[in-house]
């Protein structure tokens, strides 16, 4: 009871003292309140960001844990590293065994096979693409398909190609009229005139392949809009992937059907790399105006986009056949109220927009012009040829049907996540070119048949030119018999052995996915708190080691590379900011309380004179500090909680791509957790206590005599 009485008395005295020095109390309290407010708001926002981002990353591609071969040279990053190169991982030969091992680990719910690699896809220019379409139709007809449908497509495509040649011819005439320096060399000009002539087209049906070769070699090079796509792709089992990762969403088209070879573009890559450049530039202008409030008049980048769109209309013209050209002419003449008949010039005027005309022309482009254009170089449903250098060095190509586009909800605006496209695992394995025993044997035999010696670069000059011996002579003269039967034999053997097959149509047994090579795998856990993930990592490494499939397991945060580090970095920044703020607060509070204590030397001395112990004085000052902290800290916490709740209710809109990435979506909804409130109060109490210690120590040292001296 005595303790409680003392505490009650200390509290009453503290309250009286606090009231007496009202202004100082308010200043100190204000600082504490601000600090508490900041801690609640900051930690709530950060925890919410952390939660949404980790959910996005875990739910999109990383899973809770990623595993790969412990023998790998590089560390795995599923969302790209700083150098954007795929990690050099040792392949896991038998996925079935890996899956079995992982499923025997407690808490593992699902395992998703994966492999990441990349390839450059070169599409020809617009003329190349149109000529390739015509070549395919010629092939079909030569293979005996003379159906009405094919014939109709063939005639239509012929018409389109003829229109392209006419565009080139008009282009030459325009350039000549302007006496431009970019005039074509005479042989190219002659080639265009030849391809535009009536006799050329009259003879086309007789020798279509020759005519095509002429145009492919002589005309297609005159268009310079060829694209080079760098595609980063993940091979996986599409069904297992979409089931395991709930953040994956098909945007256009459909997912890759089971047993089919196929490719899904990430929406980000599809827009940024595959879309018609003119349309992409228009989109970028619109986005900049809407999101940043930029203007064409003041923003040099937007002005450049306008200039490029206005000057690069040939790519559009080449896409149009005669009928579409007429439609474009009519529509543009109407919109621009111009009597001009040259569609190229009309398009150049149309794209020469300013801030006033842009919105209307943007809408006009998509509503009136885009339906006649190939907005994407590769359309959903097209066959995409990916050519990659395999790990063992071969050039490997596969045809894949593009089934659609997808995005990871919450990571839509992230270049790192957005650059990852998906393909079926069977195609991935083929492109990855894992060297089978048969292939290895074939290579060994080929090498052995030649018996070439190895010469290191350091010894090359000595070994190769060291002696004028016959075998190592730079000038050996050796007459050889004309002809080489080996070459003929090799060539003869080539014919008839190759079977061209449309791999995109081939169906594979989904069971093929079970075995075979994977580079890594995502592990989804039943329970996934931080400690569960840590335990799972340790268990996986232990179990896999014991079962002879040594795996390295890493958390989602590590596997997601630089993206995963963003949250850690932001948390670090906030903690440092909070620390700095509270250190400053501590100094200010401490200073204010020391001043207050010095002003109360007489009072403290009197208390000591009437028998108050040092402990009582210490208690009084500490209680004063704690009451200030409790009252103002609680107020700050309540204010912070109110703000978080209000913002959480309405949400904060993402103002650009980076914000969309951090917010894991178009709006961010922060939520309040008990830990944020408790944490803030704990920090406030600690700071209050710490800042009261030195003034309390000073007060303890006050004696009645000092108090009397102070009076004098």
């Amino acid at each position, binding site marked *: 009871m005595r303790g409680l009485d003392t505490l009650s008395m200390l509290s009453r005295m503290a309250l009286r003292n606090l009231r007496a020095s009202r202004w100082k109390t308010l200043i100190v309290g204000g600082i504490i309140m601000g600090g508490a407010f900041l801690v609640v708001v900051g930690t709530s926002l950060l925890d919410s960001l952390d939660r949404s981002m980790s959910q996005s990353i875990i739910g999109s591609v990383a899973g809770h844990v990623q595993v790969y071969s412990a023998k790998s040279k590089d560390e795995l990053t599923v969302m790209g590293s700083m150098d954007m190169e795929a990690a050099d991982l040792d392949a896991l030969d038998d996925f079935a065994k890996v899956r079995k091992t992982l499923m025997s680990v407690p808490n593992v719910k699902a395992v998703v096979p994966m492999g990441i690699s990349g390839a450059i896809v070169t599409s020809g220019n617009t003329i190349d693409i149109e000529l390739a379409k015509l070549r395919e139709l010629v092939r079909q007809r030569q293979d005996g398909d003379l159906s009405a449908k094919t014939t109709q497509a063939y005639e239509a495509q012929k018409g389109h190609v003829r229109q392209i040649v006419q565009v080139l011819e008009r282009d030459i005439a325009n350039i000549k009229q302007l006496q431009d320096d970019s005039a074509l060399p005479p042989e190219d000009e002659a080639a265009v005139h030849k391809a535009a002539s009536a006799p050329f087209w009259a003879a086309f049906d007789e020798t279509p392949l020759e005519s095509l070769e002429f145009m492919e070699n002589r005309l297609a090079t005159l268009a310079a809009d060829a694209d080079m796509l760098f595609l980063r792709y993940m091979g996986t089992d599409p069904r297992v992937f979409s089931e395991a990762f709930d953040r994956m969403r098909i945007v256009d088209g459909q997912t890759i059907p089971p047993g089919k070879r196929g490719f899904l573009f990430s929406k980000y890559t599809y827009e940024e790399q595959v879309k018609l450049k003119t349309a992409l530039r228009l989109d970028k202008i619109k986005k900049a105006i809407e999101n940043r409030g930029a203007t064409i008049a003041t923003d040099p980048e937007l002005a450049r986009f306008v200039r490029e769109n206005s000057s690069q209309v040939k790519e559009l013209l080449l896409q149009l056949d005669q009928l579409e050209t007429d439609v474009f002419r009519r529509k543009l003449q109407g919109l621009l109220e111009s009597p001009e008949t040259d569609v190229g010039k009309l398009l150049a005027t149309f794209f020469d927009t300013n801030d006033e005309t842009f919105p209307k022309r943007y809408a006009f482009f998509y509503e009136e012009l885009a339906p006649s254009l190939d907005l994407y170089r590769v359309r959903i449903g097209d066959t995409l040829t990916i050519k990659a250098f395999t790990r063992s060095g071969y050039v490997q190509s596969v045809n894949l049907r593009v089934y659609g586009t997808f995005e990871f909800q919450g990571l839509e605006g992230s270049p790192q996540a957005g650059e990852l496209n998906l393909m079926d695992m069977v195609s991935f394995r083929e492109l990855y070119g894992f060297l089978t025993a048969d292939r290895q044997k074939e290579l060994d035999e080929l090498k052995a048949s030649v018996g070439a010696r190895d010469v290191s670069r350091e010894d090359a000059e000595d070994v190769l030119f060291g002696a004028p011996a016959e075998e190592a002579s*730079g000038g050996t003269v050796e007459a050889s018999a004309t002809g080489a039967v080996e070459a003929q034999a090799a060539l003869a053997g080539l014919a008839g052995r190759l079977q061209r097959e449309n791999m995109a149509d081939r169906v594979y047994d989904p069971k093929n996915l079970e075995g075979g090579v994977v580079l890594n795998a995502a592990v989804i856990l039943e329970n996934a708190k931080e400690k569960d993930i840590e335990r799972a990592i340790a268990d996986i490494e232990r179990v896999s080691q014991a079962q002879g499939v040594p795996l390295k397991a890493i958390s989602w945060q590590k596997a997601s590379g630089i993206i995963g580090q963003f949250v850690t970095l932001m948390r670090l920044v906030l903690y440092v900011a909070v620390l700095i703020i509270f250190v400053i607060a501590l100094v200010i509070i401490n200073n204010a309380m020391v001043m207050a204590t010095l002003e109360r030397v007489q009072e403290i001395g009197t208390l000591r004179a009437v028998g108050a112990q040092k402990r009582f004085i210490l208690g009084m000052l500490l209680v004063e500090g704690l009451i200030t902290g409790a009252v103002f800290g609680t107020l700050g916490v309540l204010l912070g909680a109110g703000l978080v709740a209000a913002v959480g209710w309405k949400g904060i809109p993402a103002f650009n791509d980076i914000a969309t990435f951090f917010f894991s979506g178009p709006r961010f909804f922060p939520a309040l957790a008990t830990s944020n409130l408790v944490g803030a109060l704990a920090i406030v109490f600690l700071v209050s206590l710490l800042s009261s210690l030195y003034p309390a120590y000073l007060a303890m040292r006050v004696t009645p005599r000092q108090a009397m001296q102070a009076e004098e």
Partner: protein
Amino acid sequence: MNTCITSRRRLVRSAFACWPLAAWAASLGVGPNPAVAAGLEQAQMVKMLEEIDERQRNQGDWQSLAYIEQKEKNKVDVVYEALVFRRSQDQKFMIVFAKPKASQGQGYLRLDKNLWFYDPSVGKWERRTERERIGGTNSRRSDFDESRLAEEYDPEDSGQEKLGVYDAQVLTLKGKKGLDLAFPEIKLWVDKATLNVLKRQEFALSGRLLRTSYYPKWKKVYSESKKAEIWYPQEIRFYDEVEKANSTLILMKSVDLRALEPNLFTKAWLESRSR
């Protein structure tokens, strides 16, 4: 002037008659000649390049079977057997891979200024550049094609060097404007006695050394179309100067100079191999 260089064609036709080439080389200033000290004249160097080209030029059709082996750090060796076809008349060129099976029927076809790549497994043609690494190795189209140094480059004298037991004339070649060359600058070590190229270094526009090649063995065969012998490097070794551990070996296993099918250098022909 030596009669050997008054008529290039005559020289080649009577190559043996004028042998050893040292005497001819001396007339160019690459032999033990007082003119050497003062360096080579531009015209002499151009003539030298023309001779290097001419000795290798077939003036007809060419077919060879080449073995290509690529070594890279931490990777399995890549090996190919490829057929190389050339036609001097219109500078057409084609490589078709015969082995291993995974690459069979893939091919490069050069027509006019285009270098096409064809893959029978996907049935598609792609336009590539002169910088394309053939089959992913460190060899380029130009390594298998006719030597066209005089047409493509302007030479500069870079002195003389000893290369093993050989005395070599070193030339620096700068690419002529407007040509799509795999390398804009080349340094060439030419055996003074025989005019065989022994060593070659290729540089990027920035001046960075990209590749060093050695040509230790030269062979010659008699060409009916040229009515003279032609020379070809039987062994070429490339050492990548960017990825230092990478090297490529090319062995010309056999050469055939008989006339090829007239329609060989067409897309249709290469397609027909695999259809």
